[in-house]
C-alpha cells in the first residue's frame, strides 16, 4: 500500500514541477520574442494604448532584474491571475473559464468514443488476426491515421451537412431557436456529433492500432499458455488474460495522448466554430493576442497534467506491480 501511495506522491511532485516549468517556459517565451515584452503582452505592436502598455510595464516590473520579473510573473499566475486581454477587454482567466466547459464536453466525448470504439476494434482485429476483419480494421485505422483532422472535419461537413443535410454545420446550438431544457440538450448533442467524431476518429485509430499490437504481444506470453493449460474457454482467455493485460499500456498511452487531444481541439473548434478554448486560441492567433494565447497554453497544460495524474492513479488500481517501482 505504501508503495502505491508513494508512487502517487511521486507523480504529484512531478506534476507540480512540470507546472512550474511551464510557467518558466512561458516567461522565457515572452522575453525571447522579438520586440518589447510589454508590447508582446499587450498584443500586436503599436496597436495598444500607451497607458495600458505602461500599466503592463509596472505590473510585470519590466524594468527590474530578470529574476525579480520571474518571481512577479510566478506570483501572478500562482494566484490565478493570468493577466488581462487588451483585445477582448476582459481578464484572461474569465475568458478561458467561459470557454472551458465546451472544450471539456467536446474532448471528453471524443476521448470516450475513441477509447470505446478503438479498443473494441483493436481487440476484434487481434482476436481474428489475419482475417478479413483484421485487414479491414487495420486499413481503416491506417487511413484515418493519415488524414489531417481539419480536412476530415470539412469532408464530413460536406457529406453529412451539405450533401445529406442531416447535421448542423457549425456552432454549438441553433441560433435564435429558443430551445430550452431537453430540447436544448438534444440540439447541443446534434451539434456535438460531427466535431467529436472528427476529433475522436484519429484517436480511435491510435487506440485500435495500439490495442491490436499490445494484444498480439501479450498473447505470446507464458501466462496465457498457463490459462489454456487450465482448460479455460477461449473467450475468457481473450478477455481476462490477454485484453486485461494488453490494456495497461493503453491506459498509459491515453494519458500521454491527452496533450494531442487538447491540441487537436484548436483545429476542430476552428473548423466547426465550436465555442471552446481551441477556438479562443485561434482567435488570439488571428489578432496576435499573445498574452491570451499563453494563458490558454498554461490552462491547457494544467488540464493535461491533471488528466495524466488521473491515469496514473487509475494505473495503480489496475496494476499491483506498480509498488515495485517504475
Amino acid at each position, binding site marked *: 500500500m505504501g508503495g502505491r501511495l*508513494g508512487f502517487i*506522491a*511521486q507523480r504529484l*511532485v512531478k506534476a507540480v514541477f512540470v507546472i512550474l516549468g511551464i510557467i518558466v517556459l512561458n516567461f522565457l517565451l515572452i522575453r525571447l520574442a522579438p520586440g518589447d515584452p510589454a508590447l508582446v503582452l499587450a498584443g500586436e505592436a503599436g496597436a495598444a494604448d500607451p497607458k495600458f502598455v505602461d500599466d503592463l510595464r509596472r505590473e510585470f516590473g519590466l524594468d527590474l532584474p530578470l529574476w525579480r520579473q520571474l518571481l512577479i510573473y510566478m506570483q501572478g499566475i500562482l494566484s490565478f491571475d493570468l493577466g488581462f486581454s487588451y483585445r477582448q477587454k476582459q481578464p484572461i482567466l474569465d475568458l478561458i473559464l467561459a470557454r472551458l466547459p465546451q472544450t471539456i464536453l467536446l474532448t471528453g466525448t471524443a476521448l470516450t468514443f475513441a477509447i470505446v470504439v478503438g479498443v473494441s476494434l483493436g481487440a476484434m482485429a487481434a482476436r481474428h488476426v489475419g482475417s478479413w476483419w483484421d485487414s479491414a480494421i487495420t486499413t481503416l485505422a491506417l487511413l484515418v491515421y493519415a488524414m489531417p483532422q481539419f480536412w476530415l472535419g470539412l469532408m464530413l461537413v460536406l457529406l453529412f451537412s451539405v450533401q445529406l443535410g442531416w447535421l448542423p454545420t457549425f456552432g454549438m446550438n441553433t441560433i435564435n431557436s429558443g430551445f430550452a431544457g431537453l430540447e436544448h440538450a438534444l440540439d447541443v448533442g446534434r451539434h456535438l456529433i460531427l466535431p467529436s467524431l472528427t476529433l475522436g476518429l484519429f484517436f480511435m485509430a491510435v487506440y485500435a492500432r495500439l490495442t491490436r499490437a499490445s494484444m498480439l504481444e501479450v498473447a505470446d*506470453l*507464458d*501466462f496465457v*499458455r*498457463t*490459462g*489454456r*493449460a*487450465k*482448460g*479455460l*474457454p477461449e473467450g*475468457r482467455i481473450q478477455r*481476462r*488474460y490477454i485484453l*486485461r*493485460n494488453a490494456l*495497461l499500456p493503453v491506459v498509459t498511452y491515453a494519458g500521454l495522448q491527452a496533450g494531442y487531444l487538447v491540441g487537436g481541439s484548436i483545429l476542430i473548434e476552428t473548423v466547426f466554430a465550436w465555442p471552446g478554448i481551441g477556438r479562443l486560441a485561434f482567435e488570439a492567433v488571428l489578432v496576435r493576442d499573445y498574452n491570451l494565447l499563453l494563458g490558454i497554453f498554461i490552462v491547457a497544460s494544467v488540464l493535461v497534467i491533471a488528466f495524466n495524474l488521473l491515469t496514473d492513479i487509475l494505473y495503480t488500481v*489496475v*496494476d*499491483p*506491480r506498480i509498488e*515495485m*517501482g517504475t
Partner: protein
Amino acid sequence: METALLDVEGLVVSLPAGAERLHAVDGISFTLARNEILCIVGESGSGKSMTAHAIMGLLPQPQVRATGGRILYQGEDLLAAAPARLRALRGNKLGMIFQEPMTALHPIMRVEAQIAEVIQHHAPMDRAALKARVTELLLAVGLPDPERLRRSWPHRLSGGQRQRVMIAMALALGPDILVADEPTTALDVTTQAQILALIRQIQAERQMGVLLITHDFGVVAEVADRVAVMQHGRIVEIGPVAQILENPLHDYTRSLIAAVPRLLAAPRPPSADAPVVLETERVCKTFRQRSWIPGRGTEVAAVKNVSLALHRGETVGLVGESGSGKSTFARCVVRLLETDGGAIRLHGTNIAKLGRRALRPHRQRIQMVFQDPYASLNPRRRVGDIIAAGPLAHGVPRAEADRRTHELLALVGLDDRAAGRYPHEFSGGQRQRIGLARALAMQPEILVADEPVSALDVSVQAQVLALLADVRARFNLAMLFITHDLRVAAQVCDRVAVMYRGEIVELRPTAELFADPRHPYVRDLLAAVPGRRWLPAVGT
C-alpha cells in the same frame, strides 16, 4: 498388466515450411502408466518440449501441428478430440507446469483467484468450500502461511514459491497425468531439490502418472522411474532408469551420459608455490537505487569483503546461487563495475581505483568470457573484426592482429573462413569459441569466465570445457571460473570458493571441499545436486 494411462503412438509434429527440418517430432511412441515418472531427456531441438505440448493440445497452432499418430488418454484419442472436450480434460485430468515460473502466472490476478478459477471452471463449488480447497492445496504444495499467500500478487513471490503455486493449480482437480516441462531449469539448485522432492511426493501420494521433460541427467537420476532419450525428434532409447543410466545401449545415449561432468573432484597438485597473479582484498560492492524522494532509495550489498588470490596456472571456481554476488564480483574484478571498497591487485598493482587511461595497459592482462553466446558478439561485425578489435585498440599493427586472429581461429577449432562471416551464422558452441578467441587475442594472463557453458547443451558443454582446459594448459593461464553448476566446478577447478549472500563462506581445494564441506550452506548446496549419488561412467 493394466492398460496405460497415456499411450502415444507414432506421434508426428510438423514444423512450418522454411523451418530447419520438417518434423519437430518424428513418429515417436511410448506409454505412461499410472503411478510412474517417465522422464523424456534430450538436448535443445530434440522435440521433447513439443511432445509435452502436443499431449496437452498446446502446440502453437496453426504453424506447428500434430499431423500424425495418436495420443490415447485412457483409450480416447486426444488428437481427434473436439476442442471443448480437450478443454474439459486440460486443467482437470491433465495438469501441466512450465519452465519459467516467473512468467507463467497471470501478473495481475491474485494467487487465490488463479487457483480458484480452474476449480470453478471444471467443478464449481460454493465460496466457503472453494476457499477451504485453495488453502488445502497451498498447504499440500508446502507453501507456508496460506492465509497470507492466498491474497498475494504473483510478483511478491519467489521463483520457487511461484512454481509451487503452479503445481497447486495443476493439482487442483486431482489430475491423472501431470506434464512437467523443465520444471526446475529456471530455479536455483537448492530450490530445484525441493521442487523435485515435492513432485516425487505428490506423485506417490496421488498415484499420478508424471511426464517430466528435462535436459539434465542429474534430474533424471533423481526422480525418474523410466527414461526416454530423444534426438532429432525420435526416441532413440527407452527403458527403466537403472538400465539407461548404467547400461545404455544406444551410442547417442552413451555419448550424452559421457558428457555429464562427474560430481567427483580428482585431487590436484596444489599450485600455492606458483606466483600470485591476481589478488583481491576485501572487495565490496553495493547497489544503490536512488530516489529523489528522501528515504525511498534502497541499497543492496551484493559483494561483501571478498578476498581471494589466484596463482599462475590455477583455476579457482566461484560457485553460488543466483543473487550470491558471484557475477557481480567477476565484473568488479575486470572493472566493468566500480568497487565501493577493497583492493584488486594485478601483480601487486591495485587497479581498483585506476582511471580509464591508467587502466588501459592493465586491461590486456585480464580478459573475460561471457555467458550468453547470443548476446556476447556484436551482430553487425564480422568475426575477424571482433577478434582483432582488442589488439588493434592496444596499438598492435593490423597485420599482426590478423595473424593472431587466424592462429586463434585454428586454436579454438574454427575454419579460417569464419573470419569473414557474421556471428548469426554460427551455433551457440561456436560462438563461445569465438568469444574465447576474442579474449585470447589480447594474450592475457588471467581469464575470467562467467558461466561460459551454462547456456550450452551438455555435449557442446563438454567440448567447450575441454577447449578451456587445453587453452589454460597451453598458455599457463590463471582462471576465475564462475558457475552455478557444482558438477562443472568439480571437473574444472583446482580450488572452489562458495559464495552466499555476497560473501565467500568456504574456499578450499576442490576435492577437499566436495568430500568434506564444513559450512552448513555448502553442505546444503552439495546435498541439493540432483542425482548426486549417481556417477556417470567415464566416456569411452
